[in-house]
């Protein structure tokens, strides 16, 4: 395997006295989708946010996170993002008071041509609803907007937190396709609960349990072994296909 | 023991405690500054530089009320609790009105300062004043129109008690002399005066009496000037402290001023002494008030010792030579009868001078006798 695009070493996060991440280490392959799995509350979101530098006020982050030769932890979020780190947050976080078009316009980065064609081709809905306030979009539409925002630009790595949550099955398939296509050019670190999506996209997997890494390795290997999925994710591999 | 046993007492040589509660900070801080300068000069003058009455030192304690009656009341209670029998100060009327009852309740002498409200006069047996009151201003204003009969007078004043008092006084003093008095009132917070200027102009008065205090005075005068009010009628108002003179701007020379005091209005012994004592050597509006307060304190201690009732008797009816000339404490209501002045402002830019046109004696400007309330 060639150089990882992102390497996380011994990442620890404490918030409000709680030791949420306790020495997490893993790497993100330079191609394809690396998926971060684990039950609710194990610290998946916390990991992503620590990487982009969005740990809440008062939180304490230790360890190292590197993208290539560059250490990320000390740098402000906006620099990281301008440097090609795209982040799609868990709660979509679209700007409710702004219109869809304004949300997109905000995501444009100086010096690059925003790829509106690509985004509108994926989500025609966003083109049609350009003048609607993002806050009044349906849940799924907001998710499209949140993904669309990072796809406007070229990135070196995408961090995507539960992108298919709340999407209609058809759209889930579409988003999965989108991510699949995106992953052809940009590596993705994905948090996802929908194992069908994981199965389709993931090449590597990292499983978290109670703030620690419980397993890393090939995603297909993980999903094929019933015993492994059962012990790590609490579901038999049979159910994965449901 | 019971709560609050306070020891206050003293042999003959014990110092006399005098408390001064006035504005060292807050909006009236500059009035307060003049007052205290005047008081120190007055004490020096009245004790011939010794600071003592007989063999007793006058021990002055100063407290800042920041213009807030609640703070003044706290300070007064604190002083009284420590055995102070004489309190003076009160830069603002609100403070004077609320400290006066405290003095009466605790039987201590209270000598109100620059506060101009008429209500302090006759407030109670223990309350005196060392400054002038609104009524005396109005009487002085009346002297500008000679025979008032048949004249039309307009009062332009702020809403509130200060304006009410002035309006009432004008109605009584000038209206009583046969003039028809009407009023134009404006909120103290007003920043744009054209509507009021228009109303005044429409009334076509023979005399306009303006009672306005505060930082918007400059804008107010300018508007009256611009709308031609100053050119059309005789306008009378009180001359404020020196620092405010430039704010009259071009309007200054078109106004007839009544004045409580300004530098050069009098040339008494006391005035000379005061001028020599204060920094800068220029007297201002409220120096005489502080000066007179000190004279009254010394008189009270001389005649009354530690007995407040004796102090009261000693002050009632007392006549003395103050900065302004002959002052008299009227026995019935403790009004302080004193000379008042008509003045003119000349100059421009930041350099203005006031000159006295006429002096009214204490009796000429005397307010009517108020009913002593308590």
């Amino acid at each position: 395997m060639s150089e990882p695009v992102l390497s996380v070493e011994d990442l620890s996060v404490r918030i409000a006295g709680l030791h949420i991440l306790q020495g997490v280490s893993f790497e993100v392959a330079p191609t394809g989708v690396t998926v971060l799995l684990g039950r609710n509350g194990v610290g998946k979101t916390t990991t992503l946010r620590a990487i982009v530098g969005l740990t809440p006020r008062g939180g304490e982050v230790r360890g190292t996170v590197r993208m290539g030769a560059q250490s990320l932890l000390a740098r402000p979020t906006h620099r990281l993002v301008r440097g090609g780190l795209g982040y799609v947050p868990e709660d979509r976080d679209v700007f409710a008071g702004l219109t869809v078009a304004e949300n997109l316009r905000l995501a444009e980065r100086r010096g690059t041509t925003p790829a509106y064609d690509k985004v509108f081709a994926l989500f025609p809905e966003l083109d049609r609803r350009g003048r609607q306030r993002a806050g009044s979009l349906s849940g799924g539409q907001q998710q499209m907007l949140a993904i669309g925002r990072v796809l406007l630009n070229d990135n070196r790595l995408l961090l995507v937190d539960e992108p298919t949550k709340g999407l209609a099955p058809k759209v889930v398939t579409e988003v999965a396709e989108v991510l699949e296509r995106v992953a052809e050019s940009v590596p993705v670190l994905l948090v996802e609960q929908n194992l069908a999506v994981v199965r389709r996209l993931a090449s590597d997997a990292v499983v978290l349990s109670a703030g620690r890494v419980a397993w890393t390795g090939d995603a297909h290997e993980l999903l094929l072994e019933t015993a492994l999925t059962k012990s790590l994710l609490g579901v038999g591999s049979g159910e994965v296909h449901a | 023991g019971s709560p609050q046993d306070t020891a206050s007492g003293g042999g003959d040589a014990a110092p006399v405690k005098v408390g001064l509660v006035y504005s060292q900070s807050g909006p009236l801080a500059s009035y307060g500054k003049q007052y205290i300068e005047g008081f120190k000069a007055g004490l020096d003058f009245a004790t011939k530089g010794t600071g003592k009455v007989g063999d007793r030192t006058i021990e002055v304690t100063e407290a800042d009320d920041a213009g807030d009656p609640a703070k003044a009341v706290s300070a007064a209670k604190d002083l009284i609790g420590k055995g102070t029998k004489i309190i003076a100060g009160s830069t603002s009327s609100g403070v004077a009105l609320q400290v006066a009852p405290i003095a009466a309740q605790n039987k201590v002498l209270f000598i109100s300062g620059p506060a101009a409200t008429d209500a302090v006069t006759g407030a109670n047996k223990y309350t005196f004043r060392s400054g002038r009151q609104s009524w005396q201003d109005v009487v002085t204003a009346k002297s500008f129109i000679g025979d008032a009969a048949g004249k039309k007078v307009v009062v332009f004043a702020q809403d509130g008690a200060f304006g009410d008092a002035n309006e009432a006084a004008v109605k009584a003093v000038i209206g009583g002399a046969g003039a028809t008095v009407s009023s134009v009132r404006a909120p103290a917070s007003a920043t744009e005066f054209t509507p009021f200027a228009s109303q005044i102009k429409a009334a076509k008065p023979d005399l306009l009496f303006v009672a306005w205090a505060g930082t918007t005075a400059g804008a107010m005068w300018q508007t009256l000037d611009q709308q031609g009010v100053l050119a059309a009628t005789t306008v009378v108002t009180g001359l404020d402290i020196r620092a405010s003179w430039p704010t009259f701007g071009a309007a200054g020379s078109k106004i007839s001023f009544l004045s409580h005091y300004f530098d050069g209005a009098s040339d008494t012994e006391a005035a000379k002494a005061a001028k020599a004592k204060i920094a800068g050597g220029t007297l201002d509006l409220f120096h005489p008030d502080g000066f007179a307060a000190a004279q009254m304190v010394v008189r009270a201690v001389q005649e009354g010792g530690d007995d407040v009732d004796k102090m009261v008797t000693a002050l009632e009816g007392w006549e003395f030579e103050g900065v302004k000339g002959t002052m008299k404490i009227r026995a019935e209501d403790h009004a302080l009868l004193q000379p008042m002045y008509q003045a003119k402002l000349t100059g421009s830019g930041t350099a203005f001078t006031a000159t006295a046109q006429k002096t009214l004696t204490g009796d000429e400007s005397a307010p009517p006798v108020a009913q002593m309330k308590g």
Partner: protein
Amino acid sequence: MTNSVVDAPPAQVPDELTPGRSRWHGLRPYLPLVALVVAAVLPYSTLNLPGIFEGPLNSPGTLQLLAICLVFGGLAAGYDLLFGRTGMLSFGHALYFAAGVYGTDVLVTKAGLPLWQAAVLTVIGGTTLAALLGAVALRTVGIAFAMVTLAFAQVGAILVARDFGGLTGGEEGLPLDVSGLPAALVGVTNTVNLYWLALAYLALVVLVVHRVSGSPTGRVLAGLRDDERRIGVLGLDPYRFKLVTFTLAGGLASAGGVVYVLIVGGASPHITSSELTLSLLVMVVLGGPGTRWGPVLGGVLYMYLDHRLTAFGSSDAVNSLPAFLSHPLSQPLFVLGTVFILAVYFFPGGLASLRTRLAPLRTALRPRR
């Protein structure tokens, strides 16, 4: 966006709804009682605290200052019922306090009623006023609510300043006519009674706020602070609960006004100003919103500083400094304002959070076994 303009105050779990902590658990319920007893016997002490108070603890000056501080401690605690507990940002709370002050003053001085009648009428009036104005203002939320309450308070201020019929004395204020008052409340030697009265008021407010916050209603109020829509979906009428709280807080404030007018011996228009409401907010945030003692501490400390800084400004220590320091320092408001700013940075959760903030220090200092 319109609703999110005002955040709920910094998240604070009401003390009353958190499980008690281990070691103090047995003792804690009695601490307030102990504090009350200590405060009640304070006037018997001749202790001298130079620099902190002008005279010994039992001197009238000190007691007067303490009494004012206590009233404002109570007032802040009552305001916290609105702001810290329910998340209602009212900018017009001073109105109900002023109603208490002027109501009593006018009824005693102008109408000549006996004190107790005036007090009862005033508190009823103040509560009714809060209920009526609250019923209107609560049709809005967030910053709009803050501004409507501010507008109402401003009307109050204008009416007082206008001095209709000479009732309020305008900017000069209205001294209280004490001739009809019980002798025990008049005169410097009786300041101690005023102190006790203020203490009783504070105790009453703290008790009410404590009981209400720990009651089923208090639970709803805490919920309202977080998510009003959710409360509705649970089957409770947010409007009703907010109105009850608003009215209760208004009533407590007007009762505070009654006590205050007795202590100060008069009413002055300072207390109708919007600054007073802002100060209430400052007191509560300074102390720690939503905590039992925070607002009380904040109120007491604020008033203490407000009164004492005038003395500090003219003290020799300040005057001997070079001019560029002594001039600003002799302005009490300069010092007060600076204190607020520093407090925000050094006590982010208010004074009440000191306990938790010092906890790590305590554990570190405790000898290890």
